[in-house]
């Protein structure tokens, strides 16, 4: 079965990140999982800047990014604004936005406006949801 090469988890709550890592591993859909606890760190990771100052010419380009909306300093939508400015070589292939509350229609509408956001879900992820995503994005 196909796997995502790298999945990037962006959530300010470390416990949530750990939980999602476990779920994804249980589902067995990813080769690599990297989690960060802020939008800025996520950008640094994608652009190999800041703490990830390393090989300038190769970027991680994760297959899938799980993005929390409610984060301090830079929330999910603000992250997307910065994300849009990235080079194509730096961007990931897909993004999934996750909700903090149960399907707030305003957030959902706003997410639909952004072309890079391919799906919108409730937290927490479950094994079934992750498998569904694999079906959807790695046919």
């Amino acid at each position, binding site marked *: 079965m196909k796997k995502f090469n790298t999945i990037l988890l962006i959530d300010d709550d470390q416990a949530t990140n750990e939980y999602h890592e*476990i779920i994804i591993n249980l589902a067995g859909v990813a080769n690599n999982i990297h989690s960060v606890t802020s939008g800025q760190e996520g950008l640094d990771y994608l652009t190999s800047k800041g703490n990830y100052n390393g090989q300038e010419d190769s970027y991680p380009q994760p297959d899938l990014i799980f993005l929390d909306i409610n984060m301090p300093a830079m929330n999910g939508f603000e992250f997307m604004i910065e994300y849009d400015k990235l080079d194509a070589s730096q961007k990931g292939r897909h993004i999934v936005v996750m909700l903090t509350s149960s399907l707030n229609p305003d957030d959902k509408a706003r997410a639909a406006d952004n072309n890079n956001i391919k799906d919108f879900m409730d937290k*927490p992820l479950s094994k079934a949801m992750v498998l569904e995503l694999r079906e959807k994005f790695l046919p």
Partner: protein
Amino acid sequence: MKISHKLILAFGVLILVLLVEIVLNQVISNRATQTYQTLQSEINPAVTILNKYEGINKELNLLISNRVNGDDRISSINRIKGIVEVELTYIVTELTTLHDALAEDHANRNHLATLIANTDDLIHTTIKFKDLLNIKEQENKTDLARGLYNTDFSNLTYSIDKSIKQLDINYNRAFESYNNELADNLKSVSRIILFTGAFGVILAIIITFQITFSISRSIHKLKVAALKMSKGNLDERIKVKGQNELAELGSAFNKMANALKKSFTAQEKQIEEIQSVNKELEQFVYVASHDLQEPLRTMTSYINLISELYIDQLDNNALKYMTHVEDASARMKTLIKDLLDYSKIGKEKTVTTVDLNAIINEILLDHELIIKDSNATVVFDPLPTLNGLQMELKQLFQNLINNGLKFRKEGTDPYIEITVEEQSDFWLFKVKDNGIGMDEKYFERVFVIFQRLHNRNDYQGTGIGLSICKKIVDMHKGEIWIESELNKGCTFYFTIFKKLKTI
């Protein structure tokens, strides 16, 4: 000047005018009476006597003339006797009375004196004449008589006649002058009455108009100000002029307006404060329940994980404890969700036209499965279309129907009936079920948030359904209450205001 003083002055003047008229009237009456009395006592009797005397005089003259010329009749002789003894005597008495009644310098007094003297003479002369003719032996008595007649007698009667005529003229003149005087007096008095009357009336009219005008203008100003205030303009004040009673009323009005404005402003401020506190509370509840969900989710996730991944390493007690934690977390999740839902009710405050029949049908469709499973029947009257909040009204009916299905009697198929009754300002709805019912001591409590009547194991739910119903009914300006008996089902009554425009 004070209005009461003005009025007293006006009335005073009028009364004064009236008094003047009365006095003048009295004066005139007295004058007229006096004149009349003078006429009666002085002039009338005089004129009467004089006229009588004139007649008697002429008659005597004629009789004597006839006697001299041979009239020997007894009737004539007797008549002459009668005249002399009675009439002339009587006339003398009357004339004397008239004479004596006159003042010393009165013109007629002398005339009357002369006339009286002449009359006496006439009497004597006539007696002399009579005696002469009665002497039997006298020769030439007829000639002598004639001679007497032609001289003394004629002179006397002529003189008397003249006197009478003179007196007559005098008395008539006096009568005329009295009349004229009276007429003049009447004229001048009536002129005075006319002028004072007119003056009084004009003065009264002026004062009446002035007072009425000032009163009604002030009243009008007061009315206008009061109406403006009633429409919400609390800054309206009256311009106060002068110091009379209406000015006092105006000042009092202004004081009242000031007090009203102050009180209103204070109240408005209070209302604003309360509203802002309410908003804060609403937001607080929303945010709190919202933020509470996040860590709860984490707890639930990890507990599940532990149960799944480490089930081998957990003994029965540990598993039991884990189960308790799981259940508690799940309950908390539901509680928070319900709290969130409760606070969200009416956030969308747009009133629209809602077709209740469509709503009930929607609810029945949503619950198709459970209705079929429990073999339930839901019937409803044709329901009205009314003004309200679409989602909330659906929630209201849904909760009640749900309860009817949930709290059913064992062994009895649920039967739920929805009816409606039109009242003057409200729609009265009735949702009746045949379920387990409740004791009347719980009728109020069940509408309180998170209040339950049954153990968690017997019936699920957080106890928020009916408090949501109450909140929704309150928003629609209605009331909700229960009629029920244990084991005999429940009937929920609630009213919805017919003319809802905004929340």
